[in-house]
């Protein structure tokens, strides 16, 4: 089945004990973030991207703070989308992965530890 353009949301999240509150746009994810990482509050980091990704096109996104991500949607169907991504910090590839994203099931990648904070990559498929 030929893949169609999929709308993906990609953002960096910083989990920190020094924060007093969580950003509004992260509040829907807050229960999940707390369950996984244990921090009370989270804030958005760098650039937030929500856009359509055409099939079989490798796209580079600047996430800010020295992070970049390469994303390719390889296939999609009514149930989800197959996505390849590579998450870089500078020249170093932190992780390379092939996943099948489904709606209502975000992918969270726990990245480097900075001070007492964690950097988290969040990928979500929107339909």
């Amino acid at each position, binding site marked *: 089945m030929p893949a169609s353009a999929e709308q993906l949301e990609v953002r960096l999240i910083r989990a920190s004990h020094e924060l007093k509150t969580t950003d509004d746009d992260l509040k829907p994810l807050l229960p999940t973030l707390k369950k996984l990482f244990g921090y009370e509050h989270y804030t958005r980091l760098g650039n937030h991207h929500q856009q359509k990704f055409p099939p079989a096109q490798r796209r580079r996104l600047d996430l800010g703070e020295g992070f970049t991500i390469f994303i390719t949607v390889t296939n999609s169907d009514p*149930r989800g989308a*197959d996505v390849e991504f590579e998450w870089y910090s500078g020249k170093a590839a932190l992780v390379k992965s092939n996943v099948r994203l489904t709606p209502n099931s975000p992918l969270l990648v726990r990245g480097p530890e900075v001070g007492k904070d964690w950097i988290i990559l969040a990928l979500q498929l929107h339909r």
Partner: protein
Amino acid sequence: MKQPDFSWTAGLADQQLKGWRRWWAERHLARNPVAAVEYREQVRARELLHENPPHQPVPEPTDVFWARVRADIEQRHQTTPVPHTALASWWTRLWTEQPLVVVSAVLALLIAAAFVTVAWHRARVTRTAATEPTAVHRVATTIPHTVASPFHVPETGATCIWISGLPWTPDMTEMQTLFAHLDS
């Protein structure tokens, strides 16, 4: 004691005895009551046979026989009514008097059934998609001494890739400096 032979009484009853044999038999009957009884039974048996001759029906030809069987079957078929239910009678009446109504109703039912089937199928796909978690097919790290572990959290519906072994840095500037020069 030898049993007496009364077989001559059958000949007398059949009027087959002539002449002196007949004279002797009649004389014996008059003097022997047992023989007389036997004679009377013989005569009675012949009277019964005469009154009830054996019946010998004339066999009918084959074609006559099958024609009779066919006629019998046809008669039974005509006289046995096909049971009609009230619903069948109503349907037959409606079909003959209002055929367009029937056709329209059937078409409408088919279209409605098609819509319901499509809607149900779409809802099922949506439900399935909504409950299917994100899956990690392949994950790899290139930085030495690091490993990535995927897992799913059913309570939240989220999937996580946990990268372990990344170097710690005290702040974002140090982190960017480190990773800018870190080849993978």
